[in-house]
Structures are given as structure tokens and as C-alpha cells.
């Protein structure tokens, strides 16, 4: 038996070649090992792939509550009198949509050519005080880019990564229909602030930032807290019945929810308009932002849609798609534990439409798949 090279899922996962000694570790690393996690290299970080069964962890999130260590992601504080002006020019989405304290916004950060440097969430903590959460593998490059733009534009902004050293933060995502109830049980002091928290809002309670955001298509929180307190919170959540989940389940959950993964569904060579992210790019406002000129000069060239495999098999990234309108390519694919069949996100010709039947080349065969909207499951319900 030999594992096929394409199956290593994009550039991030490397399940079978461990580089334990050179990898970075989160503060929860020992906890993951103690709970029997299979550890893998994810963007240079040693992270849990699963704790026994990726599929059981997936179902726990859809049906009850699961929790993920996402401390490999990097929280960055962007502060100062020019913080808003800086982010307004840095990000493709419009930070002026953040007026209420605690509001969160998903955005891409583009290069001058309109390619995606990273995708991120920016939280509006207070006026002149924003928290940006960026991906693990891209963090160093992002920080260089952000600092260079700040200096180039001469803005009064401090940019502080909060992943290491003094003031280091950890992040735990608790997701699923019972997630908020379990967090309320474990952190009763946060209940008053969280009870009325709307989706895509965050509340600061003491040293915790509790955000009603996530990457699974389920309700829940992403909790940022001082790294030194993370093990205690993790274990109390486990005692409350939150299932520890690895990055394997995180990937199938986000795929079912139709959410993009950086490095797989888009990267610096891909326009956000071709990765299904036009809704996150604000071209209407008169503001200028990095990449805007390039996006205006090069409108959307591809559709970004879901595929539901009709034949038996498993869809994977980089498989070629043949449609009546031309060729396409799968950017993310897997077996969906909720649908019990293979699903994928795919870059398709602009004319391809929901309901089309296309052929996917899987090894030497052509398998039939139906084009669907790229959101397969939301809040426990199948949408396709």
C-alpha cells in the first residue's frame, strides 16, 4: 500500500512525513498527546489530526459540541489613531462595516496583482483597537507585509503578534448546537456578556475574547485567552462534554459548510473573485485598497461552486472536471460524513450552473457529479 501524493490535501497537511523536532507546538500540545491524538505537521505546527476517529469527531460537532485547538493561528493587535485607516487600505473587505464594538468581519488581504495573501477575521474591539486573526502558515509573511505597508503609508499603527512570548494568546473553538451551552456552564462569568451575543460579534470579558464565529457551519464560539489559562479551559470543556476534535474533522466540517481553506481554495495566484469570495470584496466604496486596481482590470473569470459526486468514489483537490462549458478543477474535496458521499469545491467555467452534471477524472475513470451551491450543510441540516 502506498499513499497517493495528491492526497496530502494541499500544501498544509503532511500526515505521513513527520518533522516533529522542527515543528512549533501550541500550549495544548501535551494535552493532545495525553488524549491519544495523532499529531501531524500543519503549516509548520505540530497539531492533532484526530484523537481516534475523524468521522466521530465530525458528527460530535454537527450533533452536540466539539472543540478545536486553533492556537496555531495568529492573533494580531492592530492599534493606534490610524488603525482604521490602515485596515481600510490593507483589506479587500471594508472595515467601515465595523461600527459597533465587538463586530467581526471576514476579509481577504490582497497583493497588488489582486492575489490572496491570506484570509482573516478582523474584530473591532474599540475605536483604534482591532484584533486580526491570520492563518498559521502565512503568519510570518502576513506580518512582514502588514508592517511594510504601514511604514510605506506612514501611518500611526502598532502591529503586535500575540502568538509567542509575553502576552501570548491561545485560541479554542467550541462548535456545535450545544457549544454555547457548554461554554456557559464552564465560564459562568462570561454568561452575562455572551447571552445576547449575535453571530459574528465578540465580547471581551476580563482576559477572554469570546467570539460567536467559527469554521464549521455550526453555532458556537471562538475563545481567545492567555496561553497560560488554555489547558485549564480545555480540560473543563472536555469535562462538560465537548469532544476534542482534530484538524481532520475541522477540514470536513468547513468543506461541508462551503468555507474556503487558504492555500487550497485560493492563494497568491488566485483572485478572490475566482474563489467564491466576491461577497467579501467591496469594490463599490470610493476607498482605495491594495489589489483594487487589479481586480477592476480583471473581472471574475471562473465560477466557484460545489460538486456532489453521483458515482461511487472520493473527490480530491486537483482532480480535473469536464463540463459542457469547458474544463475546471477541484480545489478541495473529501468524503462528507454528513452526506455520506463525496463532495468538493471546484473552480468551474463561468457558464457552469447549479444543476449541471459534470464529469470528474478520478484515476483512469470519469465519474459523474452534480453542480450545487457551495454550502452543503448548515446548522446540522443538509442543504443540497
Amino acid at each position, binding site marked *: 500500500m*502506498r*499513499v*497517493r501524493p495528491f492526497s496530502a490535501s494541499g500544501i498544509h497537511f503532511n500526515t505521513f512525513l513527520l518533522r516533529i523536532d522542527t515543528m512549533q507546538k501550541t500550549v495544548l500540545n501535551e494535552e493532545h498527546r495525553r488524549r491519544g491524538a495523532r499529531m501531524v505537521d500543519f503549516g509548520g505546527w505540530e497539531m492533532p*489530526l*484526530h484523537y481516534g476517529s475523524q*468521522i466521530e469527531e465530525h458528527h460530535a460537532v454537527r450533533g452536540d459540541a466539539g472543540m478545536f485547538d486553533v492556537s496555531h493561528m495568529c492573533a494580531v493587535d492592530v492599534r493606534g489613531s490610524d488603525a482604521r485607516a490602515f485596515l481600510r487600505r490593507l483589506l479587500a473587505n471594508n472595515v467601515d462595516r465595523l461600527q459597533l464594538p465587538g463586530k467581526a468581519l471576514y476579509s481577504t488581504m490582497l497583493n497588488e496583482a489582486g492575489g490572496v495573501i491570506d484570509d482573516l477575521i478582523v474584530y473591532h474591539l474599540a475605536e483604534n483597537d482591532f484584533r486580526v486573526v491570520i492563518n498559521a502558515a502565512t503568519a510570518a509573511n502576513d506580518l512582514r507585509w502588514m508592517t511594510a505597508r504601514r511604514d510605506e503609508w506612514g501611518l500611526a499603527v502598532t502591529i503586535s503578534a500575540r502568538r509567542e512570548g509575553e502576552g501570548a494568546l491561545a485560541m479554542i473553538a467550541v462548535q456545535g448546537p450545544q457549544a454555547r451551552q457548554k461554554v456557559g456552564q464552564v465560564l459562568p462569568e462570561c454568561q452575562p456578556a455572551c447571552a445576547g451575543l449575535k453571530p459574528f460579534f465578540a465580547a471581551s470579558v476580563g482576559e477572554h475574547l469570546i467570539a460567536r464565529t467559527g469554521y464549521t457551519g455550526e453555532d458556537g464560539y471562538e475563545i481567545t485567552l492567555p496561553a497560560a489559562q488554555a489547558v485549564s479551559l480545555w480540560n473543563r470543556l472536555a469535562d462538560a462534554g465537548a469532544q476534542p476534535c482534530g484538524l481532520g474533522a475541522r477540514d470536513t466540517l468547513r468543506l461541508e459548510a462551503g468555507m474556503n481553506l487558504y492555500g487550497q481554495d485560493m492563494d497568491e495566484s488566485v483572485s478572490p473573485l475566482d474563489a467564491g469570495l466576491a461577497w467579501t470584496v467591496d469594490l463599490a466604496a470610493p476607498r482605495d485598497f491594495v489589489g483594487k486596481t487589479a481586480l477592476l482590470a480583471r473581472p471574475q473569470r471562473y465560477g466557484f461552486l460545489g460538486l456532489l459526486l453521483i458515482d461511487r468514489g*472520493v473527490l480530491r483537490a486537483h482532480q480535473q472536471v469536464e463540463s459542457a462549458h469547458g474544463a475546471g478543477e477541484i480545489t478541495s474535496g*473529501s*468524503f462528507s*460524513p454528513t452526506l455520506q458521499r463525496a463532495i468538493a469545491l471546484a473552480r468551474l467555467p463561468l457558464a457552469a450552473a447549479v444543476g449541471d452534471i459534470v464529469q470528474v477524472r478520478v484515476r483512469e475513470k470519469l465519474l459523474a457529479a452534480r453542480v450545487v451551491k457551495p454550502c452543503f450543510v448548515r446548522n446540522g441540516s443538509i442543504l443540497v
Partner: protein
Amino acid sequence: MNIPTDLKYTRSHEWVRLEADGTISVGITDHAQELLGDLVFIELPEPGRELAAEQEAAVVESVKAAADVYAPLAGTVIEGNEALANAPELVNQDAYAAWLFRMRPAAVGDLDNLLDAAAYQEIVAAA
């Protein structure tokens, strides 16, 4: 690590059982299923297919990865284990009960070229 001593093994993590009628059953080892994780799809060889040693014979896919399964020695496929088509998780539950396919070897003596449990154990330990 579960490595039964009554089976033969390949370096590529297949197990081989010599049956009383001179045919062989082939599956993937417990170590292999653990590496792959939850299996969700298995593509079996067609009966009658002639295979060379180390030729691709079957495909096993987990949520995260796809892997080729090789013929441990030359021969003819007798049957694939159709019970696995709708229940690939049987391989995760008991890798040595869930055979993938049966073959009639071109030469039974070729079995001597395969690894015994102790030799396979060393390969797993070194991985």
C-alpha cells in the same frame, strides 16, 4: 501493534494469508489502516484480472487520503471482497479479517519472498 505471526507481509503494508486451497487472501495491515484513518471507499480488482507482483490491485481511501494496494505476488484475481463496498470501515475494525481480494498465485513458492511477522515488525518500528 497487531501483527499476527501466521501471515506473510510486504514492505508496502499488505498482509497475505495462504488458504488451504492454495489461493491467497490479501488485505492491508493494522498499521496501514491506522495510518489512513477512517476508510470511506474501496475500489476492488475485477475477478480474472492478471496481476504482476507489486502491480496496483486495489485503492483504499480514507477521509483524508487515498492509497494504492499492490499485488503481493503475481497471479490471477479470483474475487474482491464485495462486503467492503458498503462497509469500508470493516478494515478499520479488524484489518486482518477484512481481506480485500483473493488471488491464485502464479507460483505458490513466491510466498517465500515475502516478509514474516518479525521482519515486518522491524519495518513498522523503523517507520
